C-alpha cells in the first residue's frame, strides 16, 4: 500500500470500513466481498459507465451513482441492495435485453456470455420492453477471423476501447447517435476490409455474442469423417496452459498430456506440436540474425511469429517491413514441413493431408488464408509430382483454444480424467525453447539460447533470461555474445509496439533485435483463449498461464532448439541448412505494404 495514501471511513450496507481514498465504490465493495455487477467496466480501459448495471444508492445523493466511476469519499454511506438499486439494475438490464436476440441456446458465446449470466443471477423472467429495432443489422462476416453481429451488441464500448487503448488500432468506432448508435467499422466496410489486425482482443472482452471468432468446427468434423483424408493437428504452445480452464480446471493448470490424449480421441490421425516448428523458427531466425550481423543488414530485426503484429506493421508502418524477419510463423512452417517432408516420408498424397491448427489466436485464421502460404503446393509443382491447377494451402483450418474445447466436449471426451499421452513423432518433438514462444519475451529468450551457442560454441550456463520475462509493456536487455553486446527489446500489446516502432522511424532505436507479440502477455493472452473478461484488466490470469509455460520448459530434457534431435534430422534428411535454398522456399516469406 502507498504510504501517502489517506484512508477514509465509509459505510457499506451499514458496516463501517476504512478504505483508501482513491478507490471507486465498485473497488471498495469488492474488497469487502460484495461484487457489483457490470457489463461495460474494464479497469483502466473502459470506464465510461455506459451500461448502468453497477448503480448503488449513496446517502445524501438524490440519484443512484454508478459504482464503477464514482470515487469513495469520507463518511460515504453506500447501499448495494436496496429496492431502488435492485429495481434500477433490473430495469436497465431489461432495456438492454429489449433488442437483444433471444437465441442463447444456439449462440456460440452462450456458456460464457456475461449478459446471459447476469440475467440468470438477477432471476429475470422476462423483459417488459418490446423490441424497438425495426430492421435487423447485417452480420459482418467479411473477416476470416472474427464475426461481428451488431444485433447482439449492447453498446458497452469495451471492444472500441480495447482496440483503441490497448492496441491503438482503432479499427472500430461508435457510429451514428442515440438509439441509432452501433459499433461499426469506417464506412461500414466490415472488419475484413479495414485495418483490423484480427488480434481478437475485442472478442475476449465482449460481454455478449456480438463478437466471436469465425468457427471452423463443422469443417474439421467433416474432414475427420472422410476416410481417405489424413487429418493431422498441431497445437500451439499457449493452448496447453489454458484449455484446462474450459473444463473447469484452475487457470495455470498445465494439461499437455491430457490435451494430446483428447485430440487423439477426437479422431486426429497424428497429434503434433507447433513447438516443433517453433524450434525450427529459432534455427532459421537465429541464423538470419547472425547473417544480418555479419552482412550489416537492416537493424533492428523484428520477430514475425505473431500474425496480428504482422498485419499491424503492414497497415501502420509499411515502410518498416524490411525490419521484419523473413521467417514464417511456426504455424506456417509446420504446414509447409508437414505437407512436404512428412508427406514424403510417409508416402502420403499431400492433397489428401489436412492440417488443422489449434491456436490461442484469431489472427492465425487470417494468416492461414494468406494467398502466399501455398509453399507445399509449389514444392510439389516444381518436383513435377502434382500438376493440379488449383493450389492447396499449407494450413487447412485454424481452431481457437475455445473451438478445440468445444470439439472435445461434443466428442464426449472426459478431458479431466484422461491419462497423459505423448505427442506423435517426429513433428511432435520439441525443446523447452519452443514452449516459451507462448509468453512475451519467450521467442527472444529461445533465440538467445541458440544464438549464443551457435556463435560461441560454448554451452549457455544460465538459460533463464529474467529481464525479458514478466508483464512490463516493454522489456530490454543487453546480451553479451562473444564480446559483442546485442541489445534486445521485447514488447507485447500493439500500443507498446508503436513506441518501439516510432523509435525506429526517428532513427533512435538502439536495438539489434526486437520481439513483438500483438496480444498483452503474448500468446497466452491471445484472442482465441478461454473467455474471462472480468480478469482482463488484471495480470493474474496471464501470470498463471505464463508460469504453466515456464514449468513445461523447466521439465523438458532438451531446452534449446538446436539440440532438438528431430530438428537436426529434418535438416539432415531434407532441408540442408538454415537459410538454405529449401528453407528459403518453404520457411521464409514476404510482406505486403497495406497502409491505411
Amino acid at each position, binding site marked *: 500500500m502507498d504510504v501517502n495514501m489517506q484512508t477514509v471511513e465509509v459505510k457499506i450496507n451499514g458496516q463501517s470500513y476504512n478504505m483508501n481514498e482513491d478507490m471507486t465504490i465498485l473497488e471498495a465493495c469488492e474488497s469487502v466481498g460484495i461484487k457489483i455487477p457490470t457489463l461495460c467496466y474494464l479497469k483502466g480501459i473502459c470506464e465510461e459507465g455506459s451500461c448502468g448495471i453497477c448503480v448503488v444508492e449513496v446517502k445524501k445523493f438524490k440519484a443512484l451513482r454508478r459504482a464503477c466511476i464514482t470515487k469513495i469519499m469520507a463518511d460515504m454511506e453506500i447501499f448495494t441492495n436496496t429496492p431502488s438499486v435492485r429495481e434500477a439494475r433490473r430495469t436497465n438490464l431489461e432495456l438492454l435485453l429489449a433488442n437483444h436476440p433471444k437465441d442463447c441456446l444456439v449462440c456460440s458465446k452462450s456458456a460464457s456470455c456475461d449478459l446471459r449470466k447476469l440475467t440468470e443471477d438477477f432471476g429475470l423472467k422476462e423483459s417488459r420492453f418490446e423490441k424497438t429495432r425495426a430492421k435487423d443489422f447485417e452480420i459482418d462476416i467479411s473477416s476470416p477471423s472474427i464475426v461481428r453481429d451488431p444485433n447482439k451488441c449492447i453498446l458497452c464500448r469495451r471492444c472500441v476501447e480495447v482496440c483503441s487503448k490497448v492496441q491503438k488500432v482503432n479499427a472500430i468506432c461508435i*457510429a451514428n447517435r442515440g438509439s441509432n448508435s452501433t459499433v461499426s467499422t*469506417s*464506412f461500414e466496410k466490415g472488419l475484413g476490409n479495414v485495418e483490423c489486425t484480427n488480434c481478437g482482443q475485442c472478442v475476449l472482452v465482449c460481454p455478449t455474442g456480438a463478437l466471436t471468432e469465425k468457427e471452423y468446427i463443422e469443417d474439421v468434423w467433416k474432414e475427420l469423417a472422410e476416410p481417405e483424408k489424413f487429418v493431422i493437428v498441431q497445437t500451439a504452445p499457449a493452448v496447453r496452459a489454458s484449455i484446462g480452464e474450459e473444463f473447469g480446471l484452475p487457470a495455470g493448470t498445465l494439461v499437455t498430456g491430457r490435451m494430446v490424449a483428447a485430440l487423439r480421441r477426437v479422431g486426429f490421425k497424428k497429434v503434433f506440436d507447433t513447438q516443433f516448428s517453433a524450434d525450427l523458427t529459432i534455427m532459421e531466425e537465429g541464423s538470419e540474425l547472425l547473417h544480418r550481423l555479419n552482412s550489416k543488414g537492416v537493424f533492428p530485426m523484428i520477430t514475425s511469429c505473431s500474425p496480428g503484429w504482422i498485419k499491424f506493421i503492414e497497415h501502420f508502418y509499411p515502410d518498416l517491413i524490411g525490419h521484419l524477419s523473413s521467417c514464417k510463423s511456426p504455424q506456417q512452417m509446420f504446414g509447409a514441413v508437414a505437407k512436404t517432408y512428412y508427406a514424403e516420408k510417409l508416402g502420403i498424397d499431400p492433397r489428401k493431408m489436412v492440417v488443422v491448427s489449434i491456436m490461442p489466436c484469431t489472427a492465425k485464421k487470417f494468416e492461414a488464408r494468406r494467398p502466399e502460404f501455398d509453399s507445399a503446393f509449389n514444392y510439389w509443382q516444381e518436383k513435377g509430382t502434382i500438376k493440379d491447377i488449383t493450389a492447396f494451402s499449407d494450413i487447412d483450418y485454424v481452431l481457437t483454444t475455445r473451438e478445440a474445447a468445444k470439439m472435445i466436449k461434443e466428442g464426449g471426451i472426459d478431458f479431466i480424467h484422461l491419462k497423459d499421452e505423448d505427442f506423435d513423432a517426429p513433428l511432435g518433438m520439441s525443446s523447452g525453447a519452443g514452449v516459451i514462444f507462448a509468453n512475451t519475451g519467450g521467442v527472444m529468450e529461445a533465440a538467445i539460447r541458440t544464438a549464443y551457442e551457435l556463435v560461441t560454441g560454448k554451452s549457455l550456463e544460465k538459460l533463464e533470461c529474467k529481464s525479458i520475462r514478466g508483464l512490463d509493456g516493454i522489456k530490454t536487455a543487453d546480451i553479451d555474445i562473444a564480446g559483442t553486446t546485442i541489445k534486445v527489446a521485447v514488447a507485447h500489446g500493439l500500443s507498446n509496439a508503436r513506441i518501439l516502432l516510432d523509435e525506429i522511424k526517428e532513427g533512435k532505436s538502439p536495438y539489434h533485435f526486437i520481439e513483438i507479440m500483438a496480444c498483452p502477455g503474448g500468446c497466452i493472452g491471445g484472442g482465441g483463449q478461454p473467455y474471462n473478461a472480468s480478469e482482463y484488466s488484471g495480470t493474474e490470469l496471464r501470470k498463471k498461464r505464463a508460469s504453466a509455460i515456464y514449468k513445461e520448459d523447466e521439465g523438458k530434457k532438451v531446452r534449446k532448439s538446436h539440440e532438438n534431435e528431430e530438428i537436426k534430422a529434418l535438416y539432415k534428411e531434407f532441408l540442408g541448412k538454415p537459410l538454405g535454398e529449401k528453407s528459403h522456399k518453404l520457411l521464409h516469406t514476404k510482406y505486403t505494404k497495406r497502409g*491505411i
Partner: protein
Amino acid sequence: MEKKSVLERLHETQDKEKEKNYISEQKASELLKENSDSLSHIYGVATFYTMLSVKPRGRYIIRICRNLACHLENADSVAEELKNLLGIGFGETTTDGKFTLEESSCLGMCSVAPAMMINDEPYGNLTPEKVKDIIESLKAGSKK
C-alpha cells in the same frame, strides 16, 4: 497555423461537395494524419452529427423543423406536402439527385412556425401552398 478540428474539416469537406452534399470515403481518408490517425474515428464523428452525411445527398437539403411550436402550427401538413411533391420520405433523396428531405430539431424560428431550411436559407410561416411554390421555383432552377 492552428490545427483545425476533425469536425471543422469535415464541414469544409462536405461544403466543397456542392452537388452531393456528403463526405466520401476518399475525402475522409484525406483528413488522415493531419487530423486523426484513424478513419473509424473520422467516421464516428461524421455519422454522429446530423448536419454531416456519409451518403450522397441532393443538391438541396430540405430540413423541416419537427419541434413543438412548428407541430402546433401544422408542420405535419407541410411535411406531407413536401413528401408528395418530391415523392420521397425523410432521409431519402429524389432520383434526379436534386432534393433530400430531412427532419431537424428546433431551428429557433418558433415565431415564424412552421419553419424549414433549404441548405443555409431559412423559410418561415409555411403552408402547403407556399412550399409548393418554393419547390417549383427550385426545380425550375430560378433559385440557387
